[in-house]
């Protein structure tokens, strides 16, 4: 037992000595250098030989220099999946960058994706599309974003463990980088629960596709029906604009009027209805409680105080006004 203790003590001293030697040998002044090994991706040693943990940025609140190695935390860094790429699949072989000698700044990689990149938008997107052209990205080339030179990496942070645009709580922040009008609208009193994190822009929009307004479905109505299916009908009494386009009356991003209405009754209704009876009434407020329909078109729910089933009704009540969405 004593012998063992002595052996361990000696080993400790020798170990401490050589551990310093190992560190020293790893230093740039060392005369011999082991060939770097892959850190994360197959064949990444070509890059991580320099872009290693010593060179990498630690996560910070401002994320000014995102971590390169953080790709290991993502699906792209899951090497057990044989489809995962290596650095050069996206950044190119970048021989000039790799073989650069000297203390000055090396030339950039063949393909870069940062803000000041000289790589064309098409070339940047090709890096992604070489694997992601199928499925939901099939129509990317004819999407509005593609035709406005918005690249995949303008929205996606491929190296980040948490890609903001794929997170419910932070997605809108990314979209608002360009869509300023919508940023103002979602904060209005009547809005979908976007700022509350219960819906995202991609609940309705498919930015990779080429549907009208980049919607997830073929039309605005079909998109709205995914949550508001009771409006789909058809009804015994159809209200024409409801069957055509929800956006005729509603602004889904937010308004100052209840139920996301673009304009309030009776102004909204009178954009289509010119009438010689009470629907043609002047806008205004009653001075006291009343049942007169000619004075109740503005207050409360406006025209909808009576025409309550405005999206369509199924009543067959034998009334001359059965088709007026009152029942």
């Amino acid at each position, binding site marked *: 037992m004593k012998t063992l203790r002595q052996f*361990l003590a000696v080993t400790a001293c020798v170990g401490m000595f050589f551990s310093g030697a190992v560190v020293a040998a790893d230093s740039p002044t060392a005369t011999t250098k082991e060939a770097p090994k892959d850190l994360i991706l197959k064949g990444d040693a070509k890059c991580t030989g320099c872009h290693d943990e010593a060179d990498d940025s630690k996560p910070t609140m401002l994320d000014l220099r995102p971590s390169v190695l953080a790709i290991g935390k993502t699906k792209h860094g899951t090497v057990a999946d044989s489809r995962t790429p290596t650095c050069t699949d996206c950044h190119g072989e970048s021989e000039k960058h790799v073989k650069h000698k000297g203390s000055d700044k090396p030339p950039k990689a063949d393909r870069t994706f940062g803000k000041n990149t000289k790589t064309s938008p098409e070339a940047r997107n090709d890096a992604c599309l070489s694997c992601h052209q199928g499925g939901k990205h099939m129509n990317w080339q004819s999407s509005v974003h593609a035709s406005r030179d918005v690249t995949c990496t303008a929205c996606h942070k491929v190296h980040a463990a948490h890609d903001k645009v794929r997170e419910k709580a932070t997605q809108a922040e990314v979209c608002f980088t360009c869509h300023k009008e919508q940023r103002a609208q979602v904060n209005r009193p009547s809005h979908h629960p976007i700022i509350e994190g219960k819906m995202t822009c991609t609940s309705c929009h498919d930015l990779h596709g080429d549907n009208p307004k980049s919607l997830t479905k073929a039309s605005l109505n079909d998109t709205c029906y995914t949550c508001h299916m009771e409006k*789909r009908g058809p009804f015994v009494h159809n209200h024409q604009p409801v069957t055509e386009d929800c956006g005729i009356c509603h602004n889904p991003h937010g308004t100052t009027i209840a139920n996301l209405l673009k304009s309030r009754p009776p102004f909204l209704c009178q954009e289509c209805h010119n009438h010689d009876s009470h629907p043609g009434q002047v806008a205004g407020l009653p001075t006291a409680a009343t049942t007169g329909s000619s004075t109740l078109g503005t207050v409360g729910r406006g025209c909808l105080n009576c025409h309550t089933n405005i999206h369509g009704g199924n009543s067959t009540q034998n009334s001359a006004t059965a088709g007026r969405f009152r029942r």
Partner: protein
Amino acid sequence: MNAIQQTFRLTTTAAALLAIFGPALADDAEVNELIKPESSVSIGVGNWSADRPQQGIYDGMRDKDAYGLLDADIVKRDDATGTWMKLKASNLGLDNREIKGEYLRQGNFGITLDYNRISRDNPNTFTTRLQGIGTTTQTVSTAALPGPLQTVSLGTVREGIGLGIYKNLLPGLDFTLSFKNEEKTGTRHWGRGGAPEFAVEPINSTIRQVEGTLSYSSKKLQLSGGYYGSWYDTKNTLVAMTNAGLPVSNANTTYLSLPLDNQAHQLFLNGGYSFTPTTRATVKLAYTHATQDEHLPTQDVAGLSLAGSPQSLKGEVNTTLVQLGLTSRPIKDLSLLANFRYFDVQDETPVARFVQGNPLSCVTPPNGNQCVDNTPFSYKTLTGKLEGTYRLTDVYRLTAGVEERRQDRAVPVSNSLGAGGADNQRVVPMRSKVDETTWRLELRRSMSETLNGSLAYLFSQRTGSSYLTVAGPGNSTTNGIGAPGPGNMINPLNIADRERNKLRFALDWTPVESLAFQLNVEQAIDDYEHGPDRPYGLTDGTSQLFSFDASYTMSEKWQVNAWYAYDHSRAKQRNSRANNGGDRLVVADVLDKRYDLQDTGNSLGIGVRGEVTPRVKMGADLQWSRNVSKYDQGLTVLAAGTQLLPAGFSSDLPNIENKLLRLSFFSTYALNKSSDLRVDLIHERWQTDDWSWSFANGTAFSYGTTTDGTTVTANPKQNATFVGLRYVYKFQ
């Protein structure tokens, strides 16, 4: 002594092992921290100091109360097999909680299961004597039989459960299946319909959606096809509203219909083929068969329906989509895009007569206009788009494009059982064709390190076929306006002739690396054309947007950003009008009114993020917005100097101002490498003078005179402060 010896032995052993493996372990730990997925769990408590009916509509924290704050984001990966296990939970202590679990063997098989709850609370308070709220039988109080007065809150809850399955079948061949079941329950502010009285829609329905997709992807060819089915299923189909003391019957009761069950089945196929690296064609095909063939519940109430009318609508809507696209870069500097789209929504519901209020006539007043058929609307839309982008220099690109949209619309005409001419049922004239051409020109500067931007101009023109006139109610020609009657003298906004000019300017300027500016300016002008025979409807519309963002990174540790946005929209509108006191104009003069509606928004945001010390991080945000709506209306003054306004009515609508100020602050203190304490402070001030639920003198609106009496109160000023404290544990 033994203890000392024992300690020495352990220390020696540890020192030896550490000396040999220490540097390697330290390296591994450092690398692992950078490359292995990370997880976090946070638990805490927060308190709102006051009720916040407006700001708390969706966030599950409407009331003055303490709330549990519990979130988790747990991610584990087995590197050897590429197997992920994820659990993400948000707002577990709140009413709008959600949780999602995922198992994924990447590239092979995956399954997700999620639960999501969205509550929506009506911000108004209802004081009512209405009985039966939440049910399909509601009783309205009368002066003689007043029910107990109660204060009620209305709102809905959606509870969704989702299932997703992914399976890679062969290299490039994937199958995905998603299923979602969402239960929606609660109450919604409604109206009695037959009279301007308070009612509550009872909601108890289910939406189910399932989508199965088989996708194939190779370098050149991609295909994706499958089935999407959706079902709406409601438990409530009809609401009976009766005055207190009266039995429920056709004579005494207002029956309010509700949406009925409907379903849709879609088959779809998407394809893409890359002929060359720069030329690609795509195709989209979809066919949807949607039906609504539920039994009509009013048919079960004696005397409520036309004898012999159909028991169900037999509704059927078939939708066909064919879309072909081609993108190409024939030469290095030129990109082309061509797109053709055929979208045909055919409502093939058979037309039937459901109502004949007066058995004598369906055509001629005074007995006319009392027949109601169902009115299916169909739309066939052809859209062609051609766009080209030419690279002028390394940094400038010019895009020009045109889009032509042609729409055929089926307009129901129901007079003399389809004899043609003016329609007896519709009250709005319609067009059977609406066409719109849009031209776009854009100059973009990009690929510059300091200055990027774009300037775009868009011009569109919409027109259509002649109007199919109406002879429905409210379109009398004996009221001084003359033929074709006031109803026909409008251009409805969705089909009106319109010319639109739009200008967009965007600029990104980064003068130095630490400073960035962004400027967006947009202006749109809509001009609605009106002939002398059709003077009414929207006449002009304008909108402007100005937004400015700035971001300054002061150091490695501090950053500040600010933004300001101004938006303004204005709509001018002209309509004829009735003399609000009665059903028909009583003078020969043409009375009309002109609206000038304006909405102006000003928004400001300022944010700062920083590291106070290596352990303390903080952030603060200020958000302020003010929206003002103006409702100016000009009324024709008669020769006698009167405007024929009804008694007890004011046409003077004040401006509405909504203001929100929200100050938020958070700070995290790192207790150690794996745990933080986080403090959140929020102060918000919401204020409105919205008169929607007010009488002209500002008192709270109430329904009815002899019945109902429900009062609706909106809380115009809501100030509240939130304090929250959380413990955050992080691990890998």
